[in-house]
């Protein structure tokens, strides 16, 4: 079964449900590892920096978003690590998945910003089109 699993998460409810599915997949293989990837969106960088006192505080804020996701992974005794990447969410996730040769990518069907998703077409849509591994989209 899948050993190298990539979970793209932003802390939204969809990404929490995606986490549950990722855990199901991972638990079928005792050697499976999950990499949780959070993309700090370029277009939020200015306001993120403005609204936090220091880069340490900002790191902490971003990690905090993933708390519900990490809690699930911890409770399930998963072997996981967290990566915070910077960029435009869709392409950044795809590049990371393809470069590091992940075997499967799990992602929520949409993230925190539902209005933008309707207008622009979703991150998950871009990921499905361009990732080289199987993608599991969780509703």
């Amino acid at each position, binding site marked *: 079964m899948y050993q190298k699993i990539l979970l793209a998460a932003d802390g939204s409810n969809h990404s929490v449900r995606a986490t549950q599915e990722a855990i199901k997949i991972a638990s079928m293989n005792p050697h499976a590892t999950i990499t949780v990837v959070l993309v700090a969106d*370029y277009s939020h*960088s200015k*306001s993120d*920096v*403005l609204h936090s*006192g220091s880069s340490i505080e900002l790191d902490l804020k971003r990690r905090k978003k993933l708390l519900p996701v990490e809690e699930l992974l911890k409770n399930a005794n998963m072997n996981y690590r967290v990566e915070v990447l*910077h960029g435009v969410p869709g392409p950044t996730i795809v590049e990371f998945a393809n470069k590091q040769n992940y075997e499967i990518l799990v992602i929520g069907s949409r993230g925190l910003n539902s209005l933008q998703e309707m207008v622009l077409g979703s991150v998950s849509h871009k990921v499905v089109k361009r990732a080289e591994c199987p993608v599991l989209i969780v509703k």
Partner: protein
Amino acid sequence: MIEKIKLEWFSNIRGDVLAGIVVALALIPEAIAFSIIAGVNPMVGLYASFSIAVIIAFVGGRPGMISAATGAMALLMVPLVKEHGIDYLLAATILTGVIQILFGIFKVAKVMKFIPRAVMIGFVNALAILIFMAQVPHFLGISTMTYLFVAVTLLIVYILPRFLKSIPAPLIAIVALTTLAIFSDFELRTVGDLGTITQSLPSFFLPNVPFSLETLMIIFPFSLALAIVGLLESLLTATIVDDMTGTDSNKNKESRGQGIANVVTGFFGGMAGCAMIGQSVINVKSGGRGRLSTLIAGGFLMFLIIVLGDLVVQIPMPVLVGIMIMVSIGTFDWSSFMYLKKAPITDSLVMIVTVLIVVFTHDLSKGVIAGVILSAIFFVSKISKLTVAKSVSNDLSIYTVEGQLFFASVESFLEAFDFNVQNEHIIIDFSQAHVWDDSGVGAIDKVILKYYENHNQVTMEGLNKKSQQLVEKLAIYNNKDAKLSAH
């Protein structure tokens, strides 16, 4: 060393060259618009953008960051240019650079952490509002065609990036609408109406000002404000680029670099500038990471002006205005409204006061200084809440002090004690307090000496190490002849 040069210059050649070209295209309308705001010929802003970008590529502390002529700086120059002319502006630009170099040498970048985020949010919002206000005279009540061109520009710049990402939308708006304006006979004001474009490289010359104390007195206040505002925006931008690229940068080197860039720029006929948030974000988004991107941005901008200068003067003003309105919208921190709801009322107040002072004085430095002072006052009043609890056991009166004892809290400290006692033993417990300054020690002296007057015995307990040292150094109550007035 060579490794570092390689990494900062040549590790991302393709991305840097492409991003540099994109930035150069986006810089031209802004450099012209900011010159118009400052009240100088467009060439002053264009030369500044060229010279600052090229120099900062070599001496800056944050690779991948774009510096050029900016709105924040242009707004500060308005009164100087109006009253004294361009030569004084160039002299002020040189002095601004000198001040910034000194800031860099004395590591003033560290002081940035004393500027609360409410003030920084106020700063960008005020900047956005001022940029917008500066556009109003160029479109309000001129003609219907002006309104129409502004509107079409806004639409292009707002909607086009959704479909076409490789070419900057402002450039498309400029090319399309300038072409339309040239081949039709609409009555529109153009860049050429507000100044001329010289198709030549900048050259070295000394600003034509008398070298006197009087000149210095005129330019110094402007230079100081320019130096502060330039540094503030540059360091904020550097932090944003740090965050976007996930790398660190040398803020003191950046400050020094900004200074060097401004000194040189002043001698080459350019106005003072600093880092630009918007352009730097465009650069990183377009793939720019290294110093090469900044160099290309400056160089390509100059190349375009030399080749296409004739066409640049034909750009209709309403198009420039539309682009600047979008710059203003992009500069504004829209999450401020959320912030106002969530943040403590004092922080919201600091933010709003910073914005209001800037909007009324048209001076970003005044807003920042007022904001910092106001938040310092709020901070002092917050931590000056000191409580003293009294308890009596046997013959002992125990006063437990809790909080910070310093100039702002001595009053509530003194009021807490009951001095109508005789021949008693009084214990003051400081284990939950900290004594900070001479006024604090003075208050302790006052209390103890007052008790001594009525033959009471006083014992102090639980002073922490720092407070103990301060009290030992400054207190006079052990001196039997001491009088209350000694402090």
